[in-house]
């Protein structure tokens, strides 16, 4: 319990530091939100209009006043107005992008973790065997591919040439969103290639991590003892070794889940998938402060919460932490 209490105090401090940076970083970039609007008129505005636009799209007050307003709005969960999509509330765009990012990156991480971990367990158990010496190097190689190439190759081959999958979007635009089979089917169909493009470059990491920890553990005394007790292979493999080896994997998984809300920019761009990465990229280019802040806040919170959950999961999985 003390362990968890200490962690929570730490997270609270980290959260404050992070939201302060979220506020400062967009403002350290040259330019401000009104610049792009003004530039888009290519000189067709007079000075009074430029001044009026700066005032209404830009931000009032000095940095300190803006900061206080910002802190207040964070706790009121008020994300402000987007300037890229003026005057749409940032919250509705964030929510929209986050939903699809959760689908896309969530599915990708889920499958990558499951596939990678099981392959890692299998490779470590039969280390040096055919499975290990064939798949381990292959998976490591895949892991080194850049998502951009994989996404473009998949797009070219399966969307453009073979036409097995759609060119883009999260679902058929003619379907209304809802919990019916048609819509869910369409979402899964549209998500297949984007998910695959992330999955292909990420499951190798889980494979390698799991395999390495497993191999170390296989030489431990408790494994020898378990064998001596005559326990079944599967019981040793999953209940003894894998359960210990999974601990660092869980921590890594928590980090990935946290960073999930950063989106998958390249994949989203190639497949016109409406995820947070794409929105954030546009927002940064246009200095859309409220969107950048909102997205960073979401990301910060997600990383911290995911870490907290992994701490809790570690406590549950690892009895040694419980007493502390």
């Amino acid at each position, binding site marked *: 319990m003390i362990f968890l209490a200490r962690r929570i105090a730490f997270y609270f401090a980290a959260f404050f530091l992070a939201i302060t940076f979220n506020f400062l970083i967009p403002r350290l*970039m*040259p*330019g401000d939100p009104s*610049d*792009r*609007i003004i*530039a*888009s*008129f*290519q*000189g*067709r*505005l*007079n*000075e*009074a*209009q430029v*001044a*009026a*636009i700066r*005032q*209404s799209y830009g931000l009032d007050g000095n940095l300190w006043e803006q900061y206080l307003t910002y802190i207040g709005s964070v706790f009121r969960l008020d994300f402000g107005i987007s*300037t*890229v*999509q*003026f*005057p*749409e509330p940032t919250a509705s*765009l964030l929510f*929209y*992008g986050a939903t699809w990012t959760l689908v896309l990156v969530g599915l990708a991480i889920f499958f990558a973790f499951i596939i990678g971990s099981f392959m890692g367990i299998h490779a470590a158990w039969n280390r040096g065997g055919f499975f290990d010496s064939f798949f381990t190097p292959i998976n490591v190689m895949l892991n080194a591919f850049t998502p*951009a190439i994989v996404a*473009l190759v998949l*797009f*070219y081959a399966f*969307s*453009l*040439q073979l*036409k097995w999958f*759609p*060119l*883009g*979007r999260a679902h*058929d*635009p*003619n379907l*209304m969103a809802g919990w019916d089979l048609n819509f869910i089917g369409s979402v899964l169909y549209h998500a297949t290639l984007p998910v695959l493009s992330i999955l292909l470059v990420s499951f190798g990491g889980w494979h390698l991590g799991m395999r390495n920890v497993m191999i170390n553990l296989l030489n431990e005394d408790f494994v020898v003892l378990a064998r001596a007790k005559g326990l079944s292979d599967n019981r040793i493999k999953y209940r003894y070794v894998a359960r210990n080896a999974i601990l660092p994997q869980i921590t890594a998984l928590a980090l990935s889940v946290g960073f999930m809300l950063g989106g998958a920019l390249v994949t989203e*761009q*190639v497949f*016109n998938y*409406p995820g947070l990465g*794409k*929105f954030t990229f*546009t927002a940064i*280019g*246009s*200095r859309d402060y409220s969107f950048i802040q909102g997205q960073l806040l979401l990301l910060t919170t997600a990383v911290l919460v995911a870490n907290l959950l992994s701490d809790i999961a570690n406590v549950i999985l690892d009895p040694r932490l419980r007493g502390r």
Partner: protein
Amino acid sequence: MHKIGLLTVLAGALLTTSAIVPAAGQEEVILRLLPYHTDAMVENYNPNNPTGPQQRMRDFAYEPLWIDNIWHPGENEEALAVSWEIGEDLKSITYKLREGVKWSDGEDFNADDVVFSFEYAKAHPDYPMGIDVYNGETGNVASAEKVDDYTVKFNLNEPDALARYGLNGLYPLPEHIWKDVDDPKNYAALDVVATGPWTEPRNFSRNGYDLCRNELSRYNDENAIDCLRFPQMNGNEQTVAALSAGDLDWLGDGLTDPDVTFLPQSEFNNYWLPAGSDVNLQLNTTKAPFNNLEFRKAMSIAIDRQTLLDISTFGLTTATRFPIGTGEMYNTWYDAAALEPYTHLMEYNPDEAIAILDAAGFVDADGDGWRDNPDGTPIAFGISMPSGWTDWVNTGQTVAENLQDIGVNASLKTMDQGAWFDAVPRGDFDVYVMWTNGGPTPYNQYSPMFNPRLMVEGQIDFQAMHQMQIPEIEAALDVFKGSADEAVQRAALTDIHKAVAENLPTISLFANPIWYEYSTRRFTGWVTEEDQKFRPQVHDGTRERVWHALALKPIEGAQF
């Protein structure tokens, strides 16, 4: 961005948008077009919201007073106004409005709406309505008055023969709706009340919406298109694929090497890239060495413009003949004979450039291999470009190499787009590659280029970045504006052209293409190189685009 690569021909079948076919009755004719890239569609139909809605609602739903026919001035330009007349003293313009036009909710359109819209624009400076002529110090239009139900007179502060070019672009709003809107920039205008051919939004989602036929529109006899469909898209990978697959009919995206990346993808894919506005080098003439005319001359002839055309910009740009800051888009305004003596400034001649620099004292004084200023201070400058603007980055690179060849230490400096925009008003730059403004007459380009008010540090305009004040040009601009006589305007313009060529405040490079791609899968009637009926762009700012949409007719048997 990324090229799609060498693709074999895509067959016709639709892929994603297997368009819903109505079960019974006549199939609706839908034109799919992309005037604006966005990550998500937002339900907002405000015709003066520049973040997307304006690009889709102007011209198609909301009509302007007048459509300046840039390629064929004076032909078929009537929109909500049917004629105009400039007052004897050039201090007023009177528009006769079209009678019998109804707003899409059934109310009559009349002079009250126009007067209201003018006053409304004036009262809301943070809601730019596209007319920049009405405000105190900078603008010249003092007031609008209703003469009768279909006549509006705009009074000017001082004689101005060109004020109508600003007023022509006023998109009148229905007074009976907008009089109750206090904060127009935050208003989404969900109930579209307009006079254009398509005014009924339908099937809105984050993925796009349709804008369907206005049953009260006067265009319905000629209009063959039931709905315009605006899909959400962002990025060239998607748009090119969508046009090839039949998810788009009309597009205006910048493409790299379209003969390879675009044409082979579908038998229906077509493009044509007529010459658009020119691109110039803007030199900061408040600094050495750019404050020296001989140096600027040497720069101009050191540039290999043929390489810029063929290699740097992928053969998509058009050559510029004279060193006057504007090009082929305004070729009807040239006095070629008067400008002939300056053509040598546009010809690649590095030996001559070296001779000019040597004679002017730009020699290598400190022995580092690069030329220095005549006073011995070193020359080293960057040509600034936003990273990712591929053709212009290539252009900056080529120019830098050309200058290095004559011993000038120039380099390409790429930066983030936001930083690039940000440095201009402050005057914090050496050399920029910069676009020029379009507009009905070359006045629209030269006026911001030589307006001293736009050269004040902190407010430097993109066109006035050179910051060189040339009184004879300012005087000639006043003459141009002060006369409705085309001969007088032409003479004044030739004076401006010559003064630019003499002083070289900017260095002319080439004309940008007008981006225009289209699919002949479903429609005929497209503007082509053989049939140059009007400017073909799909983007806002091309008021002719409504004619283009109306000119399109469905092909027999096409799938919508």
